[in-house]
């Protein structure tokens, strides 16, 4: 068989394996056996490990955004809209995407390298010899961890970003605090909150599936492990951005936002 044909065959087979792993990883949430200890461990690792990084980044993103808007809107006499624009940008777009990118960078690479070393050290083979499905034991707890922890971290990150924006708007830009909060309250409607809440679930699922797949398909020693880790992060970043656009478009359509 020609080399090109083999490569095409491999690509199709890889895609097939990825979809299978993603589906099985999700199915494991509702089918026995449940590895509850692994699930709790993963949530702890994913959540607490990323908490302070997301907190810090969110704070500075909120402050930088507020600062940029202050500079731009002051000249136009629209300073009272700072809170509104900060709120909408953070809740709908920047908060979920930023949290997901940080999360993918930190835990996506960790997941891929951990599973990759398990593959290279024959630990995954050992699981199979013991009759344990590696997807249920290794992938499902990570999928659940991401599905719960990324939305939770996004909500916390959004809150901190808005607080950072408040600090700049009130203490640097000398805007009234009540105006800032009332404009924030104005954007905390069902559509915006839903829009910001759906995205982290999808991003979390994508990060878990991509990272686990890359880790479990590691081949070729230390170089292979490095390649798998890099691919996991790069693919997660790209998929987050692509999915963000698609989700925004779909949510706009479903929630009836006019363009």
């Amino acid at each position, binding site marked *: 068989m020609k080399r090109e044909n*083999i490569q095409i065959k491999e690509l199709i087979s890889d895609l097939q394996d990825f979809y299978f792993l993603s589906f099985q990883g999700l199915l494991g949430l509702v089918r026995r056996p449940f590895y509850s200890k692994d699930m709790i461990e993963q949530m702890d690792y994913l959540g607490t490990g990323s908490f302070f990084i997301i907190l810090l980044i969110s704070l500075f993103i909120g402050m930088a955004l507020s600062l940029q808007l202050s500079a731009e809107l002051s000249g136009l006499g629209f300073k009272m809209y700072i809170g509104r624009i900060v709120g909408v940008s953070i809740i709908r777009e920047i908060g979920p995407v930023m949290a997901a990118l940080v999360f993918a960078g930190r835990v996506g690479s960790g997941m891929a390298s951990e599973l990759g070393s*398990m593959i290279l*050290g*024959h*630990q995954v083979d050992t699981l199979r010899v*013991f*009759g344990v499905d590696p997807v249920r034991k290794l992938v499902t707890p990570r999928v659940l961890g991401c599905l719960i922890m990324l939305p939770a971290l996004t909500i916390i990150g959004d809150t901190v970003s808005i607080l950072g924006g408040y600090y700049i708007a009130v203490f640097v830009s000398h805007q009234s605090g009540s105006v800032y909060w009332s404009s924030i309250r104005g954007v905390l409607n069902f559509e915006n909150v839903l829009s910001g809440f759906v995205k982290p679930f999808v991003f979390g699922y994508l990060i878990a599936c991509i990272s686990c797949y890359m880790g479990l398909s590691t081949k070729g020693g230390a170089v292979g492990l490095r390649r798998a880790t890099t691919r996991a992060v790069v693919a997660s970043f790209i998929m987050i951005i692509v999915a963000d656009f698609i989700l925004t478009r779909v949510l706009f359509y479903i929630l009836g936002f006019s363009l």
Partner: protein
Amino acid sequence: MIVFDRVSFSYAIQQVLKDVSFSIPFNERVAILGGSGDGKTTLLKLIVGLLRPDSGRIVIDGKDITDEKEDELREIRTKFSIVFQEGALFDSLNVKENVAFGLREYTKMTEEEISQKVRELLGKVGVEHAIELMPEELSGGMLRRVAIMRSLAAFDPKMFLYDEATTGLDPVNADIICRLILDLAKGGKGFIIVTHKVFDALRLAERFMFLKSGSIIFDGNKDQLMHASIPEIQVFLRELNPPSEASFHKAEG
């Protein structure tokens, strides 16, 4: 009985095994020799269904497992006790949890019974004191001993499969592992050990197979191996008679 009938296997475009055929009774002590990348580990993985052959047939205990699904292979795998290279202990679990892993998956033993069984097994191989240690805290020899005990904790295998069981160990630890392998085989249970250490292979096995570029180029007993004229085997046998200092200097000159 393990039967391989014209089995071929490849990773993408790289063919690893080519038309390999043999039969091995469960009570036979077999060493599979060969260089790195010649398909020794792949062969072990095919036996327990961790890999699927591209062509040919694999029959285990009368059952054709070539196209068996993962769930159906569970029963076949209980017939073997497999120890991978460097032990393959789970990094995130301590020694006790590693050995207890199979017991938790396969039996309904209470925590107290599991603890007792684990201590008993570790005591047999002299690593009871390491029960609370993590795998990274163990020496190479201890890792292998724990791995061997883990592999037979939950079920009573018909045959042992060892992947490079003594590779990377100092002579003392290699000797401990060899004695353990022979002890476990005393009940009439056979084993297949894949190795490139001909000294250990000669000490342990009664039948020898030699893999070269994915094909079996030799299959015979100890006598036949020692008198084989195949150049690759000759190179391996040199490990038994290392060159003298004089010949070394002569070669250098």
